[in-house]
């Protein structure tokens, strides 16, 4: 009896072993370590794409949040310390590229391979009782009185601030930039009239625009954007083609695996990611949340993150907000 039992066990173990060996990646559940807090844009986005990919891969993808440090450095360091076998993903956003110059991360972003879901595009809106009915009105007014029109955006060196700087350069104007601790307070200031214009993402502004609390002037992306109840918001590039040189600077939310992860594993992940991006649920979510879906992977995604890294790192350094000189990290200056 006992022998039989042992035999059965051996067979069972062998069988599962053979099965497991036969089935390639993934054999067990995957963990997605989101470096920002639950409920933030990066978190929500990663939960949605993880759920879709889980269906395709046939295993669970558990999303956890590991916050702290600077630029999500605690979560990134944790995910990077795990074996590079594809079972640990790091849920990241474009702001993570600042971890290096802020002293929380001592490597370049090249050590990761990115899977970019996308992000919500930035736009310029104004307080409804200001005289600026179009982007042209605003730019003309700013040219007449440089440095007087008050512009709100989240903290210096944030993505919205970079968009503001790029817009100033591209349109050849100077605004009076007022920093706020986040997008919500900046938008609040535009509603109270403390600042005349605000630059944040469409996802953050859509409720206020549709409720008539803010007037949208132009999208800071090459294409117009259709918003329910409001209609078409024109691209700023139409009237000011010079912007093309500096914009768009887009959010890049998604996840990453260490670049040294085996190629076969990355291929499986990439396949599932592409399928998930094309799924109806993902498309619907993107539309409802005013996201531009990207779906970039591999070299293409790497290029985008390298660009963001140069841009963020050197802007922060120029603002005096960086602790580490980007040159010591060998981050190239942004191409003009």
């Amino acid at each position, binding site marked *: 009896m006992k022998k039989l039992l042992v035999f059965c066990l051996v067979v069972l173990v062998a069988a599962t072993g053979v099965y497991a060996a036969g089935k390639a990646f993934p054999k067990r559940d995957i963990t997605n370590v989101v470096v920002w807090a639950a*409920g933030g844009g990066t978190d929500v986005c990663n939960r949605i794409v993880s759920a879709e990919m889980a269906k395709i891969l046939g295993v669970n993808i558990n999303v956890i949040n590991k916050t702290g440090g600077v630029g999500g450095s605690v979560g990134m360091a944790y995910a990077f310390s795990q074996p590079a076998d594809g079972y640990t993903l790091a849920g990241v956003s474009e702001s993570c590229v600042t971890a290096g110059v802020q002293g929380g991360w001592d490597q370049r972003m090249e050590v990761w391979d990115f899977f970019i879901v996308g992000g919500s595009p930035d736009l310029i809106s104004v307080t409804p009782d200001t005289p600026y009915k179009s982007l042209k009105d605003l730019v003309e007014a700013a040219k007449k009185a440089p440095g007087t029109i008050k512009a709100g955006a989240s903290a210096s060196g944030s993505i919205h601030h970079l968009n503001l700087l790029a817009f100033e350069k591209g349109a050849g104007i100077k605004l009076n930039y*007022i*920093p706020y601790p986040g997008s919500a307070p900046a938008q609040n200031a535009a509603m109270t*009239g403390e600042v005349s214009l605000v630059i944040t993402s469409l996802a953050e502004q859509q409720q206020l625009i549709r409720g008539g609390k803010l007037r949208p002037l132009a999208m800071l992306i090459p294409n117009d954007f259709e918003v329910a109840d409001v209609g078409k918001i024109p691209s700023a590039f139409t009237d000011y083609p010079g912007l093309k040189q500096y914009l768009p600077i887009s959010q890049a939310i998604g996840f990453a695996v260490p670049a040294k992860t085996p190629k076969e594993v990355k291929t499986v992940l990439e396949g599932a990611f592409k399928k998930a991006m094309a799924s109806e649920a993902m498309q619907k979510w993107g539309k409802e949340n005013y996201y531009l879906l990207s779906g970039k992977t591999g070299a293409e995604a790497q290029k985008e993150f390298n660009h963001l890294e140069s841009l963020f790192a050197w802007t922060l350094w120029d603002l005096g907000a960086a*602790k580490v000189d980007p040159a010591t990290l060998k981050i190239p200056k942004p191409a003009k």
Partner: protein
Amino acid sequence: MIDTFGIYLQSLGHVVGSPAHLAILFGSVLLGIIFGALPGLTSTLGVALLTAVTYGMDAATAMVCLLSIYVGGTYGGSYSSILINIPGTAASAATALDGYPLALKGQAGRTIGLATTSSAIGTIISMLFLVTVSPIILHFALQFTSFEFFLLAFFGILISGTLTTPDLVIKGWISGFLGLFLSMVGRDRLQFYPRFTFGIPELDGGIEVVPVLIGAFGIPQIIEVLKNRVQVGEIQKLQRILPEFGTILRNVPKIIRSSLIGVGVGCVPGIGEDIAAWVSYGAAKNTSKNPENFGKGEPTAVLSTEVANNACVGGAIIPLLNLGIPGSPPAAMLLGALMLHGVTPGPMITFEHPTFIIECAAILLLASMAMWIVGITLAKQVVKVLRIPAPLFMPIVGLLCIIGSYALGLDITNLYLMIPVGIVCYFLTEMGYPIAPLVIGVILGPMADENLRRALMVTQGSFWPILTRPVALSLVLIIAWLVLVQFPSVKAFKERWAANVLGRFRSSRHGG
């Protein structure tokens, strides 16, 4: 209107009718109370931690869970304030002023009972504001720009200094400015310039509030109790926990005033329960017939602060749901949770999710009722904590203080910060300097600093708007009055004037 009421009842039924919802309701309230009562854990942290847990639930169930934690956490801080004079959260610091003296008089049970009922009433009244007058309140909230935020923060520090000093008011202000100074340490938030960091990278991020809160309140109290061998438990009388109906009825005007303050402060973006409690305490003291009792164990003081800090919950939700701007730190966490569940709060919420605000109101009502039931049940039991001999109990409190400081961010720097702050605060207490203004200074300092400088960036260096904006001007006048009234000559003038005018008023009434 009838439709709205129908939806309201339906939402109530939806929660009450399902055992799972009821379990979540009571469980979250209890968890919130524990988070509030333990120094170092706050309702902000509670809401943040539970947000990820709610991912699998639908939006309404998630709100049951998170609003209950918020309500419970705001109330739970009063336990440690009353029982051991260490506020569990900054929101309940004002409660300790009179709550602890009451416990020393042997009325801990009754005081917790009063705090429980007051908190429940505060939450319910703020819920009524949420469903009825949101648009008016929003209009008020949009009057606040950087100058007003600065003045409000400054006012908060001054008033807590004024209210807490046993002898000279200036000592309270000195303590407040010490806090303000501590809050300047670190990189400034507008231009990232490192201030008072002495090249130490750990100080770059600034000084955390929680270790200061724990160190400043906890350590002096532990030393004090061990030194004087106070045993609060032995003198506790057996008493009814349920407050007499008469007490509540007699204080209806105070309750209404405190709720108005709570809702008003709550709806202003970015500031929360702590200021609401202080302002309400100040209003109660200034209008009381016997202000000399305040600080020595005045039940109406506990009532005023607890009504106000819980009324703040409903107030903070008003701009959150209607504009997407959180009115308090825990509400900022709620914003994340709402986005997680696909509800983007803002002006369009009544079109996209027509019943959502009403559902939230229903949940608030249930949460406050659940909090009341749990609170009254717990009150009798938690008072027994005081029977543990102090030489055993205080080291446990000390351990909790250390864990509480470390748990936040798992950062050892916070411990190095908490202990010296505590020791310095012990000597400050010995010299008669109140501690609460110091903590309030650390909390409101960044807000005062950042907003003043931002306001000057906006006006390009001009202070004029302070006098031309109505809300700013009224705040300036209140602050000026608060300061001037401390000068003996002004004080004497005020009393003479009051006696004169009131005397004439009375005699004219008698004459007529």
